[in-house]
């Protein structure tokens, strides 16, 4: 859910808030050993850092 929240926040241009959600999503991807999801989160984090 944090991944979805991060993308919704990014859609609103709230990049700091989105980055916070994405940090949580990255932790969840690690905890659940989900490499493909981790890649998607990392890609979104990169796009967010570019925007910031």
């Amino acid at each position, binding site marked *: *859910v944090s991944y979805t*929240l991060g*993308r*919704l*926040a990014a*859609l*609103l241009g709230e990049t700091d808030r989105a980055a916070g959600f994405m940090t949580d999503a990255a932790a969840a991807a690690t905890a*659940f050993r989900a490499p493909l999801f981790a890649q998607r989160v990392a890609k979104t984090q990169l796009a967010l850092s570019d925007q910031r």
Partner: protein
Amino acid sequence: VRFEFLGQVTITAGIRRVGAHGEQPALVVARLVLDRPSPLPREELADLLWPTNRPVRWEGRARRRPACIVTPDEAITSLAASRFAFPPNSNWLLATATVGDAVVLTGRREHAPVLLALLEPYADREVALNCFGSGAYWGR
């Protein structure tokens, strides 16, 4: 998505093209597309599929057919009218998170604040959807 009704009824999405096999399924597709986004009542669906003799267990068979065809934008607009108030059951989180993703994918930013408010209390939940339209969620 492109629908063709002259000759064989076909549905084309990107490079994928599928045909509606048989006259009755083709009629159902035509009705759904031409009256889009109106839903198709089950009785009318049954009449289209089985104009003469309905099978004994027709209700179960009819349930597997699509009841309406709407674009993602139309679906979001329709759901937004009730502020995405899905029934408070075990599908609530799955449905709300899926609509959240759909809003992102379609760029409908006007709906993002409502969905953020709905989903934020569940930020620590994990949601997984599979390609068959169902899914699961877990967490505290």
